[in-house]
């Protein structure tokens, strides 16, 4: 999937996607000798912002793991990253069928909480997966992605009766999703 490309989340057999997962993975910063505690750990955070008519209504991130309605769930904060084998270190699960009727857009973002730019992070990726069968819908490699500390990944929005996902891939800077709000708004 390339930047700006939109795909409908209707399946080819007519049924629509019911659950998507936004997965984020990166490799932990290598430890340096005995004074390991002095190496700076890398903490990337995945967030999902729920919008109704361009107004942010709810947000799911590491301090609010489940949206009030329960349709969007964060699997929990990972502060240091994984071994870089390609698994998701943080994930946000979205149950599209249960999203409240007034929510019409969900924007996924990735932020570097500890401030490293994506150039410094090893093997970082984020991807969107059809949670029901593990099919990857979109994937971005963040490592070497430039001197940015955040990326607005993609948005999932209502179209007609179903949902459509648009890859945004816009780089930005910020520690948490709040810092990204000005950058998100033009994409709504």
């Amino acid at each position, binding site marked *: 999937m390339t930047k700006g490309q939109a795909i409908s989340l209707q399946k*080819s057999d007519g*049924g629509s996607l019911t659950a998507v997962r936004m997965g984020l993975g990166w490799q932990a910063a290598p430890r340096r000798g005995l004074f390991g505690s002095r190496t700076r750990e890398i903490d990337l955070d995945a967030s999902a912002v729920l919008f109704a008519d361009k107004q942010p209504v709810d947000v799911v991130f590491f301090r609010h793991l489940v949206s009030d*309605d*329960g349709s969007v769930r964060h699997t929990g904060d990972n502060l240091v990253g994984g071994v870089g*084998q390609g698994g998701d270190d943080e994930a946000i699960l979205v149950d599209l069928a249960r999203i409240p009727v007034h929510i019409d857009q969900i924007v996924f973002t990735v932020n570097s909480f500890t401030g490293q730019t994506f150039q410094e992070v090893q093997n970082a990726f984020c991807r969107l997966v059809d949670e029901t069968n593990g099919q*990857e819908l979109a994937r971005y*490699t963040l490592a070497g992605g430039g001197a940015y500390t955040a990326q607005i990944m993609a948005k999932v929005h209502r179209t007609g009766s179903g949902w459509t996902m648009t890859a945004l891939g816009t780089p930005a800077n910020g520690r948490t999703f709040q810092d990204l709000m000005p950058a998100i708004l033009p994409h709504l």
Partner: protein
Amino acid sequence: MTAELVRGQNHPLSQARLEIRVSAGAPVVAAATLGDEQGRINGVEGVAHPGAPTLPGLEVSRQAAAEHRLAVDLDAMPDTVHRVSVLLALPADGAGGFGALATPFVAVTGLDGTEIASYTITGLQAESAVVALELYRRQGAWKVRAIGQGYAGGLADLLTDQGLAQAHQLAAGINEAVAQAVARSVPAPPPRTDGDRSRQAAAPALGPDQGGQASQGAAGAVPPTSPYTTQNPGGPGQPRAQSPYQDGAGDPTQPVTSAPGGPIDYSHPRRRTTAPPPPPTAPPAQPGQPTRPVAGDATGWSMEERLYNQVWGMFEDLARAAAAYRSAVDFADSRMEKELDQVLSDPRSRIGGQGDAAREAAQAKHDQLVNQARVTLDRDVAQLTAESEVVDPALPPPYASWDSPVWQGYRVPMELPMAVRLGDLHLPESPDLRIPMLIRLPLERGLWIDSGRGGSLDGSFTDSHDMRRLAMETAVAHAARLLAVYPAGEFTVHVIDPAGAGAQSLAPLVRTGVLAAPPAVGAAGVSEVLARLTQRVDLVQMALRGGAPDSLPPGFDTSQQLLIVNDFPHGFDDRAVNQLRYLADEGPAVGVHLMMVADREEATGYGPLLDPLWRALLRLTPVPDDHLADPWVGHAWTYEPPVVPSGSQVLQQVLGHVAAARTGY
């Protein structure tokens, strides 16, 4: 470690036996061509495709599928082969090109499933065939290169480009073979419309593989050209289960675990993430028919734990569903308000009917959204109601309401239950759907039955005398339930009733003789009971802190203690109040609990001294009251105390059993 290739990038291959995994958003045909040093194919024999799936060192799947695993053995390739191109193509009827589908993903993995290199084929639009990867020989070693070259003209153009003269005939032949394979396959089950739809819907994509499964497996075992014939099936170091033929994309229990993400599998090993393909004659569920709820449909080691988890799951679901509804309504309200403000501030709207029309439009938008939200909520509530109707009769006595028939068959339990029902909870959106309020045992905090507050929710006025009587009766019902759910002799109830005002309500407890001692009356009685319990807390605490819980005096009663205090603060002096606070603070840790029946207003004479006491207790009311919040969203839930049906003898019967078991004990 996986190398994520970008277009044109290459990566060395250290292993000769490889698997190439393909996943795409829709069924695609996977094929491979063997090329010479110039990359040209030597006739149709150089193409492995669904019609001729096996070549020396190479095997592809017989049909179109969303997931493929191609087996490759580079050592078995003839020396003349210098290049293996992996192709993906849309089936003949799959119009629209790859751009209309999710991005295809290919990965080269070892036999153990570890990814060596992967490549996401981005940027495809109208192309209906693509060269995904190329394995090529360079100075005796094999490498993989990401290609991603698409062809709008499909397979025929692709094969022509690789120098195959009979490209068009072959492309037609491949499509023919794919069509035949589809005809052989199990028909896809009808999509279900319930919550499991997504899982079910995963099956159709796999369906086409089912039919070819056996033949594909056989093809792998029989023809001498198969790349694995040189391998001893039971050979050491090559676990047979890793063979791609048995591990194929068509295996209904496996496909989801082959997600292209990597070796970590998040699914429970025994939980099937895709439903097993149903028999074609009997679809599993009628469309439009939600699955029937089942009691105990939750995790847990015992039925009791499963029911507990299920009830809490329903509690959370209702809280979430109501949150979704309320936020949608709030949003609709605020949007309408904003739109109306706009209408008012626009001078043009004051002329003619424009303003009215805009107002009506805003109202209509509002109503539509609210209706939609209501429909969703009603659907959820209906589902939970159906679940509740199944779960409620299945609840054992500790979880059951007093009017449940399980109390008729009540026996004194042998083991402490997980939790006890302290009442019911419901929300104004769904007054008929009551969630049992289950609290874990042993109690972590004391209870405060609030005898204050004259007016109840439904507006009927209850005077303070009635209120106190009701509060005491509620307290007795709670105490009786606690006595009933604990094993014989493991729960002791003390009562302080300084003025004797609760005698009538306490009658069931007194008459059946389940109390440790008759209710203590007067100031002397108050201080005597408090002194005894305080001493007990001291003693047990000392023993626990000293690490010697065994050294308690012989004959020491180790049961949990509940102290019911009626009419606080009557009969309490400063000393007694301090002892009470001590019990409230230190008691729960050593199994001494408080149940205060009190009106907070009356105790204000003690000033803020008692505020921590109230806060430490769980406030319950003798009449329905919306003061309890759920832990997820913080809705105000209406609490309803457990009511013994009027005229019912269930309390007396149950307490009779408890008393009998106690004397026998």
